[in-house]
């Protein structure tokens, strides 16, 4: 077999396995977890991994495995919602900007560049501080930070294809701008958007963890891998498993998503080697 194809399928297999494991964990977690992830047990704080608690317990005696499973669900859902919002908003703005050009383009791009000039974490921090620390505010904040990237990619792609013949043909046949956009431009920008979406998912997962690590993010007692990592710091010398487990989860999930994204990119654009 062509070595490149072999690598592409290796990527795909590994990616699917990891992502599959993640999804499986989430699905199982919907119906069963070894313990209640929020229930505290002040008699057994900081116990190391053992038969009763496979991943040990944290400073309140909560089961780390159960919290990791619930954390998977929360983190993934948050990341998905963020990506959905960013893609929708970014595509709309990018389409309008790239297709209509002129003043619309200049205005939208200035706003986009302004948002882009804010350090992402800080923008998210500020927005969450204003809106209050809830799931929806986190999604909104992260989506705002990522929308400009989507806008740029979409706009770039639109600019490069708007000159093509079938667009001209469509316009001269009397279609409205909106109609042309929907019927001809949109399907052609889907591939780069799909690829971008997988990267975005990874970034969103990472950013939510970073925000939780910094102390803003999903409010307690709900676990996310990020806030579990953050809470582990004072206990690093007596309970190192608290620092290792959530990080492994994040790394594993990200690796799976990245590999899947790579495989997707290879499949959609065979000339481009990953």
């Amino acid at each position, binding site marked *: 077999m062509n070595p490149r194809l072999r690598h592409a399928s290796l990527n795909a297999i590994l990616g699917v396995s990891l992502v599959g494991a993640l999804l499986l964990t989430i699905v199982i977690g919907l119906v069963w977890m070894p313990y209640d992830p929020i229930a*505290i047990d*002040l008699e057994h704080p900081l116990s190391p991994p053992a038969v009763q608690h496979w991943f040990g317990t944290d*400073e*309140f005696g909560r089961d780390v495995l159960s919290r990791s499973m619930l954390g998977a669900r929360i983190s993934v859902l948050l990341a998905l919602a963020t990506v959905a919002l960013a893609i929708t908003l970014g595509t709309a703005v990018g389409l309008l900007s790239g297709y209509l050009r002129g003043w619309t383009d200049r205005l939208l791009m200035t706003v986009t560049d302004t948002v882009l000039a804010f350090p992402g974490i800080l923008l998210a921090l500020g927005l969450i*501080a204003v809106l209050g620390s809830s799931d929806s505010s986190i999604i909104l904040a992260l989506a705002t930070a990522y929308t400009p990237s989507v806008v740029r990619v979409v706009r770039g792609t639109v600019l490069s294809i708007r000159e093509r013949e079938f667009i001209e043909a469509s316009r001269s046949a009397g279609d409205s701008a909106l109609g042309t956009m929907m019927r001809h431009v949109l399907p052609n920008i889907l591939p780069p958007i799909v690829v971008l979406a997988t990267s975005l998912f990874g970034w969103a997962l990472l950013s939510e963890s970073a925000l939780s690590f910094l*102390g*803003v993010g999903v409010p*307690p007692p709900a676990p996310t891998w990020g806030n579990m990592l953050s809470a582990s710091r004072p206990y*690093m010398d*007596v309970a190192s498993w608290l620092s290792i487990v959530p990080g492994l989860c994040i790394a594993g999930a990200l690796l799976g998503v990245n590999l899947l994204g790579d495989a997707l990119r290879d499949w959609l654009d065979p000339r481009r080697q990953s």
Partner: protein
Amino acid sequence: MLACVPVRARAEAGEPPRAPILRARLNSDLVSSDPGTRRDENTDGVLLHIVEGLVGSREDGSVGPMLASRWSISPDGRVYTFALRPEVVFHNGAPLTAAEVVWSLQRYLKPETRWRCLEVFGSHGIARVLAVKATDAHTVEVTLDRAAPMFLTTLARADCGATAILHPDSVRADGSWIAPIGTGPFQLGEWRHNQFVQLKRFPRYAALPGPRDGNIGGKHALVDELRFLVIPDTSAARAALVRGSLDVIDNLYPAELMGIRGRQDLQFQSVPILDCYTLLMQTRDPVLRDVRIRTAIALTIDATALTKAITRGTGTANNSPIPAASPFHRAAEAQLRTVDVEKARQILKASGYDGRPIQLITSRRDPQMFDAAVVIQAMAARAGVNLQIDTLDWPAHLARYTTGDYQLMVESFSPRLDPTLSFGLFIGDKRQEPRKTWDTPRARELLDEATRTADPARRQTIFDQLSLDFLEEVPAVVLFNSARLSVVRAAVTGHQNWMSAQPRLWGVGLR
């Protein structure tokens, strides 16, 4: 890393050799060098090495003489006559006389000084000051408009700057602040903002005879220089201590002992202090206005288990606003509510609570406050109370506390040395002070009476009654009092925290 071995200062006859420098840590820079005005705990702590007031606090928290050797109170309780100690000298060499005392006190009473405790002598305070005058070179007379047994206690308060007596050269001709010229065992040296505050030993300090006692007795400077290094990060402070570039860290949370627990070259100390960790309840809230719901929540909280877990065994569980280490904490105050989850469920059912979410506000600024919220949320859930934690950063938390804009809030209060001040954290008129949680006429009357009474027996009876009412009416649930954890290098001698939590670096030396 080898620490530099300090060269011993040439000892004066009969005195043990003094180390040149002792380095302590501040977790944030001083707010100002003007005592009792713009301040926080760090500021108070450092400035009280430099300045002193007419009175101060003894080791047990009671009021004792500082710059005044004795005082007398007129039979109607309105006139206080202070006799000044003639041997006291300011840092600029000028002797302490009544003139400087009068000037200092009058300065505090001027609104433009922004004295933190001015409102205690205002329209809603304990009394108004009618006159401050010098009857001779070493006697000062203060006249109030009514008797106020809390007058001296207020003067001694650390957050009032101990009503420090300053020399007029501390300010310019137009009244603007320069630097504190006080009477304390140390004087202000260099203050490099956000780096360090340097205090130099004042050789002509006249210490009160006797052993170290609170912030009044036996204040001997055993080092030539005190340097408070500003190190906001605990891990950096720990590293500096281990490395030898820091000598004293006198305030750590239990969770911050990571990596240095059990080291042989360090000494550890834990002293219970008079602070207060509590769960405040907004009795005006539509849901929480029902005392049954408040009671139900209180019945689920196992203060003992909570305290042990959160403070890693260093704190003391307590359900009374009077801290456990206080001399006023007697049998009535020591009563702990019995945990009864089943009863809580029944009471909740009877009240018709429908399981709707109740907001519980906390902050990450204090890890013990944050942990308390997590534990309370889990404990309350056992009875079916649905608490939702809202973690706010410190400014937002402060704002919500000050305006009373919360349903439940975990709060920690810094040490108060008198029970009226402790109860005063909770009791008040919500229309004037929305941050107060306990707004019943009876509570306000009892507190008023305690403030006006001088008789210790009567006061204790009132405090006992208030403690019992507090358990019954549940305007809040006091959780625990913590301990001040300090870590010092093995070469440091004489370091001893006390229950007011103020740092004390006199009487502390280096081998």
